[in-house]
């Protein structure tokens, strides 16, 4: 359970408390926004709006509730609104969006799905930097071990062993991600 004093200070707009809440939940809010919007700049805008909205509503926030799910819900709502605004601006009717578009209210991501992205982020963030690089190059960028070895200037055996260690750590940390 979050520090109630922190939540009370956040409600009062204490700058230090705002920073603390951002540092503890900013990645979650950003990850949710990015998952909806798929654009870094828009996700940052949504993150800022989400924190401002949260602060505006903080006086009515139930201190017994957890900040994370509440902030994630605000972020998702703000991101969807931003998506619609951008769609209108680009003369890109919502009807033309893909049916599975996660930004559309007709197919919202569940709270658990949003948390899953965050949990994976948190797990990756706990990897040593050299292992994070391997995982990112493999999964996000789609490079093979040989390509990664060439990019990083290390032996392919080093890449393979780092990859194995990284995925072993991730699998252990994310073993609770789904049942």
């Amino acid at each position: 359970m979050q520090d109630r004093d922190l939540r009370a200070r956040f409600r009062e707009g204490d700058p230090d408390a705002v920073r603390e809440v951002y540092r503890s939940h900013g990645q979650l809010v950003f990850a949710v926004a990015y998952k909806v919007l798929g654009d870094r700049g828009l996700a940052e805008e949504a993150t800022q709006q989400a924190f401002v909205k949260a602060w505006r509503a903080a006086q009515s926030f139930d201190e017994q509730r957890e900040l994370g799910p509440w902030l994630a819900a605000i972020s998702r709502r703000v991101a969807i609104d931003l998506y619609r605004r951008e769609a209108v601006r680009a003369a890109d009717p919502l009807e033309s969006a893909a049916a599975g578009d996660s930004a559309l209210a007709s197919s919202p991501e569940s709270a658990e799905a949003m948390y899953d992205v965050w949990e994976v982020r948190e797990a990756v963030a706990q990897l040593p930097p050299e292992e994070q690089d391997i995982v990112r190059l493999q999964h996000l960028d789609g490079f093979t071990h040989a390509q990664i070895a060439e990019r990083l200037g290390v032996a392919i055996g080093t890449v393979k062993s780092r990859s194995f260690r990284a995925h072993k750590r991730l699998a252990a940390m994310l073993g609770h991600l789904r049942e």
Partner: protein
Amino acid sequence: MSTSDDDRIAYLSGEPVDSLTPQERAELDEVRGLLTTPATWEEPDSALEDRIVSAIAEEARRGRPVESAPPAPAAPEAPKSGREPWLRRLFRRPAIAFGGLAAAAAAIAVAIVLAAGSSSQAPLQFAMVVSGTSLAPGAHGSATLTKMSSGWEIQLSATGLPHLSGGRYYQAWLKNPAGILVPVGTFNDAQRVILWSGAPVTQFRSFSVTEQLANGNPVSSGRRVLVGIAHPVH
């Protein structure tokens, strides 16, 4: 042939592995999917923190417009067709606590196979090891799930979870591969709990316990503290 941890790690890292079951493959594909999504990797600009603090400070100077707190997150929906199955726990031995990692790794569900009699009238029974998540890294225990005439009786025994009171409680859930959650009971202490499920464990084999608040919101908080996978007892 049972899948080894190394097989699952190898598959997660992108290597071809033939020994995985379709469900294991689908669950690991889900994690791989999350690792490929840009949302997992993108970082906000480092100046965003200052922009947020400044924006809120400006609001405070101008006088805060009051907004009501948004409602609680929506209940988990029944998934659309084609939704990825859930990822089960991957390992069959307790996780090693990696040095330097802030969040403890979740322990690993282990299939418990008990020697049983060959009586055809023996009750259908499942069992599981339950393990703490990063929210409760020290929690662990076990449970048996037995088919009765009135439903499935779940006997849970776990340590390492604090006693909850004062409007806070634990809620246990079963979930099927399609992601449908079924509540199976609430309690304050996990050391010795009997829960009940009207949904068949044969189909709802993923078990979890969440921390909840007694605020009228029945949906899962998402704060999972205990997880496990039920396996049939032979």
